Structures are given as C-alpha cells and as structure tokens.
C-alpha cells in the first residue's frame, strides 16, 4: 500500500530539511566539536580537570537534581488536587498555573527579583515585621526558586492530565481495603503516574541544566555552567574552552534525556 510512493518522491520530500539541518546544525556543531583540538586534546576534558569548571558543573548538576525533585513533588501535589472532580474552579486554577508556560526564562528571573531582590516584596514584608530586609534573589535560593517557577507549569499540566485519566477503581479498592492516604498515594497513584513522572523528570532536568536566561537575569553569585560558558565566550573570548564546556554540557543533557527515554521504553515527549 505505502509501497506506491516512490523512493524518488520520499527523497524529494526529505531533501529540504536535510540540507537545512546540515547547513545550520550539523556543520556548525561539527566545527564546534573540532575547535577545542586547536588548543590541544586536553581542552576537551577541561570540565573535569580544571577545578573551577568542575565546581561549576557540580553546582549545575546538584541544582538541577534538587529542582527536578522539588518540581515533581509540588507538581504531583497540585496535579492530584486539580484532577479531583470536586474541586471548585479547577479549570480556572489550572489556566492560572499554566499561564507562565510561555514566559521566557528572563521574565522568570525578573519575577524572582521582584519577590526576593533588594527592593523585593519579601524584603518589604520582613522589614515590616521588624526582621530586616531579607534578600534571596541573587544566590542559590533565588536560582532554585526561578528554575522551580519555570518548570512547575509544564509539570502541573502533565500531572493534571495524567491524574484525570487515572483508573480510580484501583484507588477505591485500596481505600475499601483500609489503605491510608499515603498507601493510596504509593500503591494506587504513583505506579499509574510513573510514565508522566519519568517524562517530566527528564524535561525538567534537561531544561535546568541548560537554563541560561534565568541565571543571566539574576546575575547569580552561584555560578552555573551556562553562565561559565557565556563568560568564557564573551569576557575572555576563549572560544575553544567555551566550545569544550558547551559540548560537555550538551552531551550530559542529551545523555540524561536519552537514558530516561530508554528506561521508560518510549521516547520522552519533548
């Protein structure tokens, strides 16, 4: 049936994308891969051998892992709540919570400055309580909250959709057998939500690893890898090093997505 389409037609259909992709991604990335060699082979391993970059990598990894865990827990809670048919105005709540889906990372960074910056709402609030002007925007806390803000809408949307299509009879059965709230969560809900959890974890981790706009806006004192790369590129004009570091970051991010996809047996939804 499909054999009726000739090979020639298929090739013609593929050619524009193939040319475009080769010219604007494959070729440039190949040059990026070749670049660190100009400064010697050891440049490829700079992320491991140079203490400063290794620290930056560890910072990024740990932050991304913590953000992923926190986003999953909060997103799961909100998703389970919004999926309950009895909750008043849940569609409205869901649309409010998913509104930031389209916000660029820079806007999220600005939001955190409005909350926890020098002129922030929290500073005013704490001063009013006589606790001094507390600021948290420019350090690890600010970065954590910004990444969390960025990731939550996606995860909430996925969990709400998944929880709505859950098989409620398993839950009813568990309850009638006397299972408490956490047993229901653990035995009836989580197994059904596992694919969603895996997909969300992969996406949140990958976006956190590569997040540049948020960290850039916060001008964070806590240095993450995308900022390190950007500094090498603009401030020190060290292209081979910037290339090496971004390759390491790219490889790591791609690998985590790939492994997660393999582990869940399907492709992780982009």
């Amino acid at each position, binding site marked *: 049936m499909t054999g009726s389409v000739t090979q020639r037609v298929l090739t013609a259909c593929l050619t524009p994308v193939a040319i475009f992709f080769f010219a604007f991604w494959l070729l440039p990335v190949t040059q990026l891969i070749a670049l660190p060699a100009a400064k010697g082979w050891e440049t490829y391993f700079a992320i491991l051998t140079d203490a400063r970059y290794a620290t930056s990598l560890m910072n990024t990894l740990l932050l991304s892992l913590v953000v992923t865990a926190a986003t999953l827990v909060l997103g799961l809670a909100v998703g389970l709540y919004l999926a309950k048919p009895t909750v008043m105005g849940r569609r409205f709540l869901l649309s409010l919570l998913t509104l930031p889906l389209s916000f660029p990372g820079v806007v999220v960074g600005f939001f955190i400055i409005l909350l926890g910056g020098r002129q922030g709402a929290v500073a005013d609030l704490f001063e009013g309580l006589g606790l001094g002007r507390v600021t948290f925007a420019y350090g690890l806390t600010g970065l954590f909250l910004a990444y969390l803000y960025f990731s939550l809408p996606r995860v909430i949307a996925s969990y709400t959709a998944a929880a709505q299509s859950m098989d409620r009879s398993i839950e009813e059965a568990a309850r009638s057998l006397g299972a408490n709230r956490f047993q229901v969560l653990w035995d009836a809900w989580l197994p059904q939500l596992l694919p969603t959890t895996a997909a969300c974890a992969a996406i949140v981790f990958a976006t956190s690893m590569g997040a*540049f706009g948020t960290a850039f806006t916060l001008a964070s004192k806590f240095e993450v890898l995308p900022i390190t790369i950007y500094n090498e590129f603009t401030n020190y004009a060290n292209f081979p090093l910037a290339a090496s570091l971004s390759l390491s970051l790219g490889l790591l991010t791609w690998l985590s997505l790939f492994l997660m996809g393999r582990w869940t047996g399907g492709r992780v939804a982009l």
Partner: protein
Amino acid sequence: MKTRSPILVTLTMIVLIFMISPMLISITAAFLQQYSRGLSGGLTLDWVAHVFGQYGSTVTASILIATSCVIGNALIGVPCAYALARARGRWARSFEEMLTLPVAVPGLATGLALILTYGEWRDFRQSYAFILVGHMVFTLPFMVRTVSAAFQRAEIASIEEAARSLGAGFITRFLTVLVPVVLPSIVAGSLMVFTLSIGEFNLTWLLHTPLTRTLPVGLADSYASMRIEIGSAYTLMFFIVVLPLLWLLNLAATLTQKRYGT
C-alpha cells in the same frame, strides 16, 4: 469523592501564591510613579508609553520572526514529516532522532556553533535571518514529530491510496488530500513553534546584534540596566501583546481540531 486532602490543598495554595504574586507585582509596578513608594506615590502611564515608543520594535521583530519560523518550518517540515512517516527503516528513525538533537543540546551550544560557522558572513550575521535559522533549527522537531505522527495514522494511508487510484499525481495528492487531512496537526505544531520562538532567549542572546533585537533580548537588557518600573512596563508588553496572541492561536488550533479533526 468526599476525601479531604489538607496537604494537597495547602501545597496547591502555596504554589498558587508563588506563581501569581510576581505577575501581580509586575503588572502593578508598570503603573507606579515610583516603585519604592508603592501606590501612595501615585499612578502613571508614562513608563508604558516610554517602553512602547522605545522598545515596540522588539515586539514586532519577535512576532515577525516567530511567524516566519512557523511558515519556514511548515514548508520544509511537512514534506519531511510525510517522508518519515512513509519510509520505515532504521535510517528514517535515526534521521528523526537526529532532528531532535538541537532540543536536547542546550541553546548556548547551538548558538556558539552558528557563530563559529557563520560569524564572518557579515550581512547574514547582522540580519534577523541569523536569529531565524537558529529558531528554525530549534523548533523544527516539534513540527516534524507532531505532523509525522498524524501521517502515520492508518486511515490516512488509505485516503491517499484512494486518491492515487483515482489518478491523482503525487503533488495533487499531497496538496489537496494529505495536507488538509493532517491540518489540525500542522496547526498544533505551528502553535508549539510560535510559542517557543517568541520566548526563545538562550540561543537568541548569542545570535543577536545591537540592531537585531527580539522581545526577550530587550527584556533582559532592560532588567539589567533599567529601573524596576521600566522592566515591569516592558514585561507588561509581553502580557498584553504576546499572551492574547497565543490565546488566539490556541483558539484557532482548537477550532481546526473540532472542524477537521477525526
């Protein structure tokens, strides 16, 4: 269900406050004469007017780039999606996987790579086209995958076969039969591409020049160097121009889905 869950309610409320309060602060701050004095300092439209005059062009640029990105990706992506759906082989799978690499690899790496290869091509480097190709490479897989999934549906193959047996040539078949059938998916893919392009920063920050600035680039600039009132007024532009636009597109996507969807 009458089960109460105090933990879920509490967490949801905390998340809601965390997500909503900065939006409200930002919207309010855009109209304050002086941010530090709050509402008592009085209200003004000056910041908004200033931002519209000064940075309105970045909004136009972003909308144009996102639109071109959708058109370009539809033109090259839809035939590609068709070919990938029909060609069943290892290489087709690998090709599809390869197309998603720009999404898995951080935008910073792609941006550096593009500058490395095309940085010396002055006219290209200094035009919006440079940003456009970056956006297209990054959003292409969303178009291809969405549409390819639609082409794979069995009933589409039989519709195509029927058109062929009636003597329609490939191009006629493709344009008058296949494309209309997968239109809802093309619209859905376009919506994704548009949304991603209009908010893209990681790549764009590297690719932009002082003369080619998009909305997120301008925003980052204003956050770094301007007062909070201006940053807020600029963010307001995003709220009142981009969000309604996205809602409209979303509505259009839902309507096409209802009208043409099966």
